[in-house]
């Protein structure tokens, strides 16, 4: 390895780099070591995570873990499995944040989609779906954090939007999303043709989106 330049003939000079016409090595300032992340948007946190800032990942976890865990638990009905699903989803966030960065999707959509996907895959693998629901105590711990207060505000909006959906659409969405049922299982369960189920899901999601927009749903848990 020593004196490679003198021993190797025809060594190229990498002219683009030498000219300073460089597309490489853009200096990236080091991330702040830790500290208050509260003022940062979800997007900013994801950007820090993409640069390997584990404190930013912790902050993102603190923002979304309660929603994520609630969702996983609702689908999986098993605490250990729900913990697995949440952990794997956040590890995926950690590992793939740099790829996500170039997208314009909301971090909350991305994170919760990861949690949901992982939970649904686990529940199908475990075939626990038809087990009796476990009772989940809604509030086990004392004071609500500011994030939890915000989650509660978002929850009210979603709940209200759901009440404005036609009942058959709402039923299809809830069975699919919280129950982890496939569309084929859904058709069987509801005794409807597959085409009907597909159109209920499609129309239902579209309508839900409109309703959420009307009600100012943001799913952005950073400080506003």
């Amino acid at each position: 390895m020593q004196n490679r330049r003198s021993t190797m003939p025809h060594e190229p000079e990498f002219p683009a780099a030498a000219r300073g016409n460089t597309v490489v090595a853009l200096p990236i300032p080091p991330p702040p070591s830790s500290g208050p992340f509260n003022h940062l948007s979800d997007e900013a946190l994801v950007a820090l995570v993409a640069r390997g800032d584990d404190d930013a990942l912790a902050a993102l976890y603190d923002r979304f873990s309660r929603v994520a865990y609630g969702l996983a638990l609702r689908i999986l009905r098993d605490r250990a499995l729900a913990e697995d699903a949440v952990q794997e989803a956040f590890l995926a966030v950690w590992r793939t944040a740099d790829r996500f960065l170039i997208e314009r999707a909301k971090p909350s959509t991305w994170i919760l989609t990861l949690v949901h996907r992982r939970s649904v895959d686990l529940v199908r693998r475990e075939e626990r779906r038809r087990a009796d629901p476990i009772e989940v105590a809604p509030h086990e711990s004392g004071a609500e954090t500011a994030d939890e207060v915000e989650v509660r505000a978002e929850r009210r909006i979603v709940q209200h939007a759901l009440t404005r959906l036609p009942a058959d659409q709402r039923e299809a969405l809830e069975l699919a999303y919280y129950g982890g049922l496939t569309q084929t299982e859904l058709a069987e369960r509801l005794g409807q043709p597959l085409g009907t189920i597909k159109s209920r899901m499609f129309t239902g999601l579209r309508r839900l989106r409109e309703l959420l927009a009307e009600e100012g749903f943001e799913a952005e848990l950073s400080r506003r």
Partner: protein
Amino acid sequence: MNVSDLHDLVAAHALDALELRERELFERHLVTCDRCRGELETLQEAASALAFDVEGPTPPPELRARLLARVREQQPASVVPLARRRWAVPAAAALAAAAAAGAVGLGIWGLSLSRSLESEQSARRAEARALEIVSDPAATRYPLRGADGAIVVTPARAAALVVSRLAAAPSGKTYELWVDRGDAPRPAGLFRGGGDRTIVALERPVPAGALVSVSLERAGGVDRLTGPLLFGARAA
């Protein structure tokens, strides 16, 4: 399944209500269907709002501690701490992380990056291969000229490029690796760059004395070098 049937799967995919087989078909379809990709983004946002309707207990504090311990023991693949412990990357942990990310593979998010699910998956395999190479204790490291990083070559002549702070290739462009054994540069793989650190396995072996270099080419890559060489290293 014909194309109009595939269009019909978008809401079910947003709700994760497809069988695995259908999911694969649909994700493949997404690669070529702008309409479905756009639709999916919209519907996925509405679907994930449903998560906020769930009222559950606070996750146990051990979960947070466990997650952060795992995170801290395995830097993301793009920032494997090469400088800290020379090539002593815990390969098993890194590979486990790669597998975990693959298992919850992103629907749309991986796509626009690599333009196809197939290349995304092969990119993950290449990444796993690259991690194996850089974590091989018998591998030799040849520092790059023109950029901050190295070419790592195993005794079996498998090679990986590691480069720091490489800006992502501009849209419509890709980085392309070349191995020149003295006759002509031969293509050895494409990558995108971006992030703190890029690690990519070369698709061809690097014999002693060969020059490994990188150029910027049009997306999809080229068979013959057209762009200027940006950086590289010669393997001994």
